[in-house]
């Protein structure tokens, strides 16, 4: 197990998301290895869900492509198991509650532990419902990442005080997807969180350009990029490795400045 806060050592963390099985698991496997070598500090592997209500169209479509191509939770586990030894950065699954519950929460978290996963991000399990997953995560050495949003207000301190791994700050109202500007006062959310905990804070939703990445990283401990990468994968299909690598490097360079 790698602690998720390892991703935040000494620098601003770059967290990247991809949907497993889009365009196929072989490509996902190559992408994970390449991203880890190219400056990504933590990788979120999305297990596709039929009805991802927190996602914009880019990731919705990636999920449906992956499922249509025969991607299953079991095959994703097998893929991670093959490559985990070659990857030195923390790995987390990002998926919806029913994917875990439907597989069997105990069985799912035990399998995560066995293949060397380090955490889970589950956007439809808020603070009030985390007992659904937390006891199982604890038993199997997985950190359950908490999210806060621009609407969280009075909830931020409670959530941050109990958070583990890192705090996922949702930058904007709405679903995932590229945005031209982010207007939320991220600095204020970070300082509220930091007033109760030393948990690393990473900002996601809407970030795509190196300039945005840099600007958001200045206000937090790290940034999360998903849709912008998935969009490149959608455009290039199996030939996406090089264009994704190039994009990843541009973001990593901006964060290193």
């Amino acid at each position, binding site marked *: 197990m790698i602690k998720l806060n390892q991703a935040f050592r000494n620098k601003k963390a770059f967290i990247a998301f991809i949907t497993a099985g889009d365009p196929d698991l072989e490509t996902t496997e190559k992408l994970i290895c390449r991203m880890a070598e190219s400056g990504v500090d933590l990788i979120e592997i999305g297990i596709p869900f039929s009805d991802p*209500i927190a996602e914009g169209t880019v990731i919705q479509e990636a999920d449906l492509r992956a499922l249509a191509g025969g991607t299953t939770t*079991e095959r994703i586990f097998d893929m991670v198991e093959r490559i985990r030894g070659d990857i030195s950065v923390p790995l987390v699954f990002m998926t919806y509650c*029913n994917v875990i519950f439907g597989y069997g929460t105990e069985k799912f978290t035990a399998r995560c532990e066995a293949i060397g996963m380090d955490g889970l991000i589950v956007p*439809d*399990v*808020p603070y009030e419902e985390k007992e*659904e997953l937390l006891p199982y995560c604890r038993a199997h050495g997985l950190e359950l990442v908490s999210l806060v949003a621009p609407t969280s207000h009075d909830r931020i301190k409670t959530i941050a005080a109990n958070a583990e791994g890192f705090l996922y700050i949702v930058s904007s*109202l709405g*679903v995932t997807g590229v945005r031209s500007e982010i207007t939320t006062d991220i600095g204020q959310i970070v300082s509220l969180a930091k007033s109760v905990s030393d948990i690393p804070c990473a900002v996601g939703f809407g970030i795509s350009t190196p300039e945005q990445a840099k600007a958001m990283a200045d206000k937090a401990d790290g940034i999360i990029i998903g849709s912008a990468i998935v969009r490149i994968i959608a455009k290039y299909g199996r030939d996406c490795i090089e264009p994704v690598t190039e994009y990843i490097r541009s973001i990593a360079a901006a964060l290193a400045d």
Partner: protein
Amino acid sequence: MSKGRFGIHGGQYIPETLMNAVNDLEKAYNFYKNDEQFNRELTALYNEYAGRPSLLYYAEKMTNDLGGAKIYLKREDLNHTGSHKVNNALGQALLAKKMGKTRLIAETGAGQHGVATATVAALMGMECEIFMGKVDCERQALNVYRMELLGAKVHPVTSGTMTLKDAVNETFREWVSRIDDTHYLLGSVMGPHPFPTIVRDFQAVISREIKAQILEKEGRLPDAVIACVGGGSNAIGAFYNFIEDQDVRLIGCEAAGLGVDRPENAATMANGRLGIFHGMKSYFCQDEFGQIAPVYSISAGLDYPGIGPEHANLRDTGRAEYVPITDEEAVQAFEYLSRTEGIIPAIESSHAVAYALRLAPTMNKDKIIVINISGRGDKDVAAIARYRGVDIHD
């Protein structure tokens, strides 16, 4: 900790972005549900605008034809807008207005809830946007035009199976994007707490009236209450005030589509298993990996892969029974009630009529059945004609 449980079911499985919105809604509801002024206004809307109380009609011809239990029809089809959906739409819109919201969004399957929401939005001077699966927009084109006439904007949803579940997904996505001025007027007893409770309370007027009306007409409670279930709002409305009356059988009729043993069905109680989706723990049609199944029914209103958490609990405790009804049985019942009583029921409600056709002849003549006719069938005429291979221009 976790709120809004019915046994193990219910809860609030939603993105963090929405948590304060549902908490605010819960607080407002807890205040207004006991507020005299609110209740006076709502009752006035029910009685003066929606045409309540709805009739409890003795279906004498049907009773004689089936030769068994006495059959009463609860005429929710006679409500303004043509279905029970207006009960909840009026209640939630009034609540949203008190909360200072100026915009209503809603999902719709058959279009009945969309029409009810568009109607109350027009009445209360609120902005209104409706999300409806593209497939449903096509099979219920008349209702799309009705909503537009009422001033609502209708968004055809093209994601997933393009039916009710996708409309719900899209309405949640819209709500996450714009919360401050917007209330999600959820149409069924589903979703995160407090929706299943709020919708049930506003629909419970159905069983409150049935109880008073049957006591007046028969001097006793019915032996069975039958209603169709998709998400389950008309059924919970028809059941709720009878839950404590253990001798009253409560029977929910779900959509078996082409048959429970075929992939093309929406029979959650027959085929679903426990899951967590659309904000709630309940039963869902899903595969071994928890992917939600693409369900099917001739009825756009019952074409949903889950069921409300209170129904899931009523089944667990054995208090209510749930039976699957196929498209063919529902269409036959649609035609039967039209011919026999001169009442054209919604294809959704026809699922309940279909079970009554089976049940009534097995019961003695001194028994009483109440069928909730949750909506009227005008919207379905074109689809039934198509089903029967008749080409009419709709």
